[in-house]
């Protein structure tokens, strides 16, 4: 029975099936809200599903110049890692901390899992042997290098805030804080440093999702799809599914880090859904009110604007911890 329960957990709810369906639905929300902002009607609710099904039925072309194994396995790895991240985050949300089987330092694992889709994209596109994809790969690498540091700094702010909320000054139990379950108990976004960190992390997630103004690696009017240019058929469908799952996992990660997670019970699930939708709407608004930035501008933006702001946020959070002021 235990095995079946675990399999159900992984494959149906809230694992593979539920996450993918929610992701496709989130895709539809993004497209519909974008359409409404554009004064368009927008696609029907099942359109993302139709897209994926149609792609699955199409011929999968593999370029002659491609390194076949890497080209084929990259989307699989990307999809699997982001799915695993989603399952990890659901476990934190839906199961009480005592028996969700989460382990110390799972938050580090989550951060690693967040990087893997980008790495897989870099590998897959550089294996495709197209000059457009080569430019896209270079851009994706620069993009990852620019936002990753800021994301980790934002994450440090969250850890300090968690320690402050927890009221621990001894180092004895500090290690316990390094788990998603304990982070999910608090809402750092209500404090000054936490809010700064949230906004910076939101921009990082925007870049991770490949939304405008950070859709530079794909930039269809410049390099015709860039990293994804050679992908077609089932492999492209996998990338689309990975993007759909990212649309669930990354905002959920932000909700857990900054907004106190979701929790169990009808009321808190509804509230959690509200938080998720809030993050999603913020992402869509940023997407639709900005032109695409250039890659060098993006690197400058993250390193020289977001970086220093995050350093200030860390100092504020440390001060808050020292003087025991939760709002700093």
């Amino acid at each position, binding site marked *: 029975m235990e095995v079946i329960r675990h399999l159900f957990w992984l494959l149906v709810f809230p694992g593979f099936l539920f996450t993918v369906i929610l992701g496709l639905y989130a895709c539809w929300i993004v497209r519909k809200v974008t359409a409404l902002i554009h004064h368009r009607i927008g696609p029907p609710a099942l359109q993302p599903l139709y897209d994926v099904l149609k792609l699955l039925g199409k011929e999968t072309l593999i370029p002659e110049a491609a390194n076949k194994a890497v080209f084929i396995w990259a989307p699989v790895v990307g999809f699997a890692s982001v799915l695993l991240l989603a399952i990890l985050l659901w476990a934190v949300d839906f199961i009480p901390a005592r028996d969700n089987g989460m382990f110390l330092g799972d938050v580090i694992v989550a951060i690693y899992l967040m990087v893997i889709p980008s790495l897989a994209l870099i590998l897959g596109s550089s294996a495709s042997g197209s000059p457009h994809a*080569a430019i896209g790969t270079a851009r994706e690498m620069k993009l990852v290098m620019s936002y990753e540091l800021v994301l980790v700094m934002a994450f440090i702010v969250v850890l300090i805030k968690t320690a402050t909320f927890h009221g621990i000054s001894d180092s004895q139990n500090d290690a316990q804080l390094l788990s998603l379950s304990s982070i999910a108990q608090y809402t750092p976004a209500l404090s000054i440093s936490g809010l700064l960190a949230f906004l910076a992390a939101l921009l990082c997630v925007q870049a991770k999702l490949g939304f405008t103004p950070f859709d*530079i690696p794909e930039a269809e*009017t410049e390099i015709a799809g860039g990293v994804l240019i050679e992908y077609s058929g089932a492999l492209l469908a996998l990338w689309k599914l990975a993007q759909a799952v990212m649309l669930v996992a990354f905002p959920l990660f932000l909700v857990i880090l900054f907004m106190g997670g979701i929790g169990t019970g009808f009321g808190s699930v509804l509230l959690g859904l509200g938080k998720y939708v809030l993050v999603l709407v913020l992402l869509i608004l940023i997407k639709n009110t900005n032109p695409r930035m*250039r890659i060098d501008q993006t690197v400058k933006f993250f390193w020289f604007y977001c970086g220093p702001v995050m350093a200030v946020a860390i100092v504020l959070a440390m001060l808050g911890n020292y003087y025991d002021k939760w709002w700093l």
Partner: protein
Amino acid sequence: MKKKYKLPIIASGPVHPLQEEMEFFQLYVDGETVVDIDVRLSYNHRGIEKISESLQFDQVPFLVSRICGICSASHPLAYVQAVEEIAGITPPERALYVRTIINELERIHSHILWVGLAGHFIGYETVFMWAWKYREPVLDMLEKITGNRNNYGNVKVGGCREDLPEGIDAEINPILDQIEKKMDMLTKAVLDDPILHARLKGVGVLKKEDAVAYAVTGPTARASGIPIDVRRDDPYAAYDLVDWNVCVQKEGDVFAKAVVRLLETFESIKMVRKAMAKLPKGPIAVEVKEIPPGEAIGHAEAPRGETFHYVRSEGGNTPARHKARAPSYVNVPSFKASCIGEKISDVLITLAAVDPCYSCTERVGVVERHTNRVIFDFDKLLQLSREKTEKIRKGI
């Protein structure tokens, strides 16, 4: 010694999401920097000039309005002015006003179209969608006036085919007010956006000397600080009868080109209003008996620059020679001056910033089928053309 290696080519075309037409820009890139550019057009050569020589003088306007879907009022106008000059015809004043109104409405919709496309090219889809929505009433207006959203076919030798429909002035002013208000909002939003500044300012600068050297026309020249405008320099239609300003910017970058176009939209709105107010009564066309032998040029300021038509008549029913030069033909080569050394992202918006219109520009290019060797390139064709001109000159 630095190893000499073959630079990778980023191909924008022949089919590319950047533009809706066939074009082929080979960008030689070193990393993200474009070090050379190879412009290859001629995917859509339609032999318009040759067809024109087999049509009657009256039929040609319908043909030349199909040179370009967007400048479909300025091409026939330039042609008709050339023919009128051969025949020594002065169209009635009301026809001149009607021509002005249609041409300015065309400019409004073309400039708004460009603003939308420019937004699309830099990934600002909201601007794309909004601008095209605001453009829609202008097309409706043109449909009301001429019967068509594009390819108006309203000019003929000697005047206009159709008068403005009755009661149009009551309808056109509210629509102009509406467009002006929305464009005002859009202009302010675009000109104040810091990220747009970062993306467009100082990008693809076409210096004044380069602009002169490449003989660019229209908004491309005006954005580089060259105050040329056929409407003012050699007034046709009713442009000398209404007062308006030539919009000039000094910087020569993409942002300046956008500013010139946005300001010109407001100028055009003003012009249409004034022309509607001053519209005289009377006939809209004079009867034309025959076109005597002779040659003449006609030019008009299309939304993209100067459209130039040369017509030669030998006294028959059809033009003996008809030559059309669309503004993109001189604007496109300026990429050599404005794009080299820029980043890929900047180059592609710079390519779009002259608002190139490829099907107007197409000239024949002969390429060997299997080897892709160019048999007739630009220089060879130019030489052929000069030889032929020489021959014709001797014939006269």
